[in-house]
């Protein structure tokens, strides 16, 4: 039953009690008022009437006595008659009064009966009085005698009257008594009612209290238990249907949640990777997980809630898990109050490192987490090592080297001694890889790393920058001699053959070094200098040691400048083509032009191809440049008379990049130029690689109608053999032969004549390049050379000046037959 209903029922019961007691009191008061009314209006007047009757009867009786006295004393008859008349009148009046009284409606049966007796006795008395009076008139003594009986009768009347008075008085008393009794009874009833109501109220309160207060007390107890974190207790009757039942069920639900939360919290705490401890303001354990205990060799019992921090630290020290030398100091340090958030790392005596975080709480306690970071540190160190070292050789990498170098440089001013940076590069490492595979290459690199480590001292650093490049940071040296000596020892040590799979791998190294004392104070600068020195060593034929010299720096700067110029030129199409005419010697007629690329420098001068093409090749820009040259040359040639050809140089690098044929076809297509008007000039170095892919490309180019020309023929090692490997359309004799003409006996002359003859035999056109003088022209004329090209015949000119050359050629054609000298003169004009 809901408490609401109980309370309502209780108040209804109390109200009924109140109404009952109050109603009774009201009724009682009314009854009392009635009784009082009865008493005052009826009983008392009746009594008064009776009293009056009595008085009158006595008065009559006294008159009788007076009559007899007077009669006895001989009073005369007239007076006696007067008294006896009065008496008789009184007797009649008395009867009337009794009758009147008897007619009252409020007489009780007893009164009525008494009144009946009284009337009878009155009559008897009246008779007696009459007799007495009668006798008295004549016989006084006898009247006196009769007086006794008359008085008896009177006494009877009087006694009846007294009885009436008694009855009336009794009635009054009864009424009064009833009044009193009623009042008394009312008082008692009211008192009893009040007591009963009080008892009932008390009982109701007790019952309601029992059914409300007791469960509420148990609910309160349950809530106290819950709030103190205890979840194992008797929760009481959950099946009650009232509000208390709801409360109990709510608490049960809460307790269930609390249980789950506690379970989760315990699970979470005990599955944490960190040790966690929560302490209160008195430095006692509030919560402590298993890991915390395990970390310091404590049993769960030794770390249970309530344990003091002092006890825990004492046990830790006893178990040997503390840091520092002084135990007392450690204890003080641990017991110091936690006032601010802190993170500290303790190096425990057993070698572990523990990260301890402390977080103060508002109530004066704190939470602390202890994390064993030994493993993390080990991994971090490993990662750090891996990040700064080369996996193959376990040598430092570039960043670590630079770091070490910077540190070493920072120490220099104080120590006064210098250091050297050695750049070491394996000569032809590619060959090692090609011959012995990458395993062989790796074996060499590892062996070299060991040897380098063996050569260096403690403070020195050995690094591998990738590929076959090593760097040694040599510290604490007196000067260039020490560095030079060390570099030589390195070169010697590394030239010892490496044994790999029962093979002996021989490799040499080039070394470039730079000195901090002479060449620079920054790591970048020293590395750059050493690199430049190495570059020089390589350039000087490898397997040698070079010290950095300032001019290398200039070269390097020039090169950097050139690289920038090339990059910008590609980006902004800054290249220009100059065209050098090619003539048929016998007719002195123009055959076409060779397109020669020029790179305008910042200062307006033109950079020659020999200066920038190798650099462009290294920058891997040559295929882009080559494609542009093809497109631009074809576009220009398309404007020329149709019998003129244009020759374009294609480098080996372009072929290695691939797609030359497609680029050529696209350029022809774009310029709408006939394929046979285009000649591609390749150098014999292209054929050195003996690549089938390149041969295939060349055949495709030839197949679409483009002529393939062997350029600089004779400058290489085995030029002749190439002539049979590919059906060239034309051979251009290297200009070095023309330069050598007339200087070194007749060798050049013979070679030129032989090549011309060879070309004729092979039915291949031959062009002589580098014709710069009239003598040279005369010589090739006499040697029956077919075509010629050179400054004497025509310098390379910009596109805009080509028109003049072509015009001059037409004029020359129209005046055939002029003298050779004149022709020569005219040719020079061009």
């Amino acid at each position, binding site marked *: 039953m809901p408490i609401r209903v109980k309370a309502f029922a209780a108040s209804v019961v109390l109200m009924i009690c109140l109404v009952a007691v109050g109603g009774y009191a009201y009724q009682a008061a009314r009854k009392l008022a009635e009784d009082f009314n009865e008493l005052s209006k009826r009983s008392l007047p009746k009594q008064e009437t009776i009293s009056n009757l009595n008085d009158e009867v006595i008065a009559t009786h006294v008159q009788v006595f007076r009559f007899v006295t007077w009669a006895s004393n001989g009073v005369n008859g007239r007076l006696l008659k007067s008294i006896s008349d009065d008496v008789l009148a009184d007797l009649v009046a008395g009867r009337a009064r009794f009758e009147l009284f008897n007619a009252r409606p409020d007489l009780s049966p007893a009164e009525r009966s008494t009144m009946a007796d009284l009337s009878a006795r009155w009559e008897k008395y009246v008779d007696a009085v009459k*007799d007495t009076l009668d006798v008295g008139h004549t016989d006084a003594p006898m009247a*006196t005698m009769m007086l006794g009986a008359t008085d008896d009768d009177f*006494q009877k009347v009087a006694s009846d009257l007294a009885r009436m008075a008694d009855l009336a008085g009794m009635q009054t008393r009864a009424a009064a008594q009833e009044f009193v009794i009623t009042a008394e009874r009312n008082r008692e009833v009211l008192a009893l009612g009040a007591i009963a109501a009080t008892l009932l109220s008390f009982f109701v309160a007790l019952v309601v209290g029992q059914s409300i207060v007791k469960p509420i007390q148990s609910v309160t107890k349950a809530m106290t238990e819950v709030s103190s974190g205890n979840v194992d207790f008797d929760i009481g009757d959950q099946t009650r249907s009232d509000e208390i039942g709801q409360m109990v069920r709510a608490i049960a639900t809460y307790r269930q949640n609390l249980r789950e939360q506690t379970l989760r919290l315990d699970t979470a705490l005990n599955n944490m990777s960190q040790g966690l401890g929560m302490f209160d303001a008195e430095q006692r354990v509030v919560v402590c997980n298993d890991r915390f205990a395990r970390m310091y060799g404590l049993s769960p019992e030794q770390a249970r809630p309530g344990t003091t921090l002092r006890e825990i630290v004492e046990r830790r020290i006893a178990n040997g898990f503390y840091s520092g030398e002084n135990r007392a100091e450690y204890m003080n340090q641990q017991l110091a109050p936690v006032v601010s958030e802190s993170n500290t790392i303790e190096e425990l005596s057993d070698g572990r490192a523990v990260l301890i975080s402390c977080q103060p709480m508002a109530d004066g306690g704190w939470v602390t987490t202890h994390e064993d970071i030994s493993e993390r540190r080990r991994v971090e160190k490993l990662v750090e090592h891996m990040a700064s070292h080369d996996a193959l050789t376990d040598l430092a990498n570039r960043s670590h080297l630079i770091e070490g170098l910077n540190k070493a440089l920072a120490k220099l001013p104080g120590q006064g001694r210098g250091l050297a940076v050695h750049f070491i590069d394996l000569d032809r490492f590619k060959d090692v890889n090609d011959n012995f595979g990458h395993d062989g290459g790796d074996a060499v690199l590892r062996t070299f790393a060991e040897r380098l480590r063996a050569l260096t001292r403690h403070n020195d650093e050995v690094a591998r920058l990738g590929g076959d490049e090593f760097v040694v940071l040599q510290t604490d040296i007196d000067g260039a001699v020490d560095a030079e000596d060390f570099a030589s020892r390195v070169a010697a040590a590394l030239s010892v053959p490496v044994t790999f799979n029962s093979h002996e791998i021989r490799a040499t190294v080039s070394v470039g070094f730079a000195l901090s004392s002479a060449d620079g104070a920054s790591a970048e600068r020293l590395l750059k200098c050493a690199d430049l020195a190495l570059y020089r060593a390589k350039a000087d034929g490898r397997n040698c040691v070079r010290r950095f010299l300032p001019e290398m720096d200039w070269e390097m700067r020039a090169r950097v400048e050139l690289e920038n110029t090339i990059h910008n030129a590609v980006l902004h199409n800054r290249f220009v083509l100059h065209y050098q005419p090619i003539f048929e010697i016998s007719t002195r007629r123009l055959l076409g032009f060779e397109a020669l690329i020029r790179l305008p420098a910042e200062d307006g001068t033109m950079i020659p191809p020999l200066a920038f093409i190798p650099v462009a090749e290294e920058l891997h820009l040559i295929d882009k440049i080559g494609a542009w040259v093809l497109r631009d040359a074809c576009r220009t040639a398309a404007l020329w008379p149709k019998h003129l050809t244009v020759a374009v140089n294609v480098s080996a690098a372009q072929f290695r990049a691939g797609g030359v044929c497609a680029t050529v076809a696209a350029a022809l297509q774009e310029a709408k130029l006939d394929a046979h008007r285009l000649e591609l000039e390749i150098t014999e170095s292209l054929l050195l690689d003996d690549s089938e892919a390149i041969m295939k490309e060349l055949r495709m180019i030839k197949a679409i109608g483009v002529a393939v020309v062997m350029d600089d023929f004779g400058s290489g090692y085995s030029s002749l053999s190439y002539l049979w490997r590919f059906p060239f359309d034309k051979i251009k004799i290297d200009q070095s032969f023309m330069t050598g003409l007339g200087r070194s006996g007749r060798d050049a002359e013979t070679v030129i004549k032989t090549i011309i003859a060879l070309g004729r035999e092979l039915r291949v056109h031959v062009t002589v390049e580098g014709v710069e003088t009239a003598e040279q022209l005369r010589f090739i004329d006499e040697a029956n050379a077919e075509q010629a090209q050179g400054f004497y015949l025509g310098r390379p000119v910009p596109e805009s000046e080509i028109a003049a050359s072509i015009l001059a050629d037409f004029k020359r054609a129209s005046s055939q037959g002029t003298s050779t000298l004149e022709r020569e003169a005219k040719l020079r004009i061009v």
Partner: protein
Amino acid sequence: MRNAAFFIVFVALVISNVPALALEISTNEQVAAMVHRVQERFKKDGLAATIEAVNDKTTPEFHDRDLYAFIYNMQGIVLANGARPALIGKNLISLKDQDGKYLIQEMVAIAAGPGSGWVSYKWPSPVTNKIEDRSAYIEKMGDYFVGVGMDR
């Protein structure tokens, strides 16, 4: 009580007013004889004549000094009284003397019981006309009783 006190005072007053009398002593035999005379008369003449004779003061056989006869019926009504005619017709059954003796009732009792006997009481003497100690002899007479009193 008030009435009783009043009565005693009154009786004292009455007695003090009675003048002293010279008493003639009658005998019991004289009394009985007079009773017997009344009986005889009753037997002879009947009640009415007897009553008349008794009441008639001139009749000597029923009046002798302090002696006189009286006749009551059994209810106490005075039928005849030789000394006090005022009483004739009066019912004196409840009469009592100064000592409180219900003398008439005693007489009725004797008449109803033994039929004859003596009764002593106080009563106005016919001689002194004052209340004196008297004795009367009573006898049943038919449905009545007859008595003769004398001073003592």
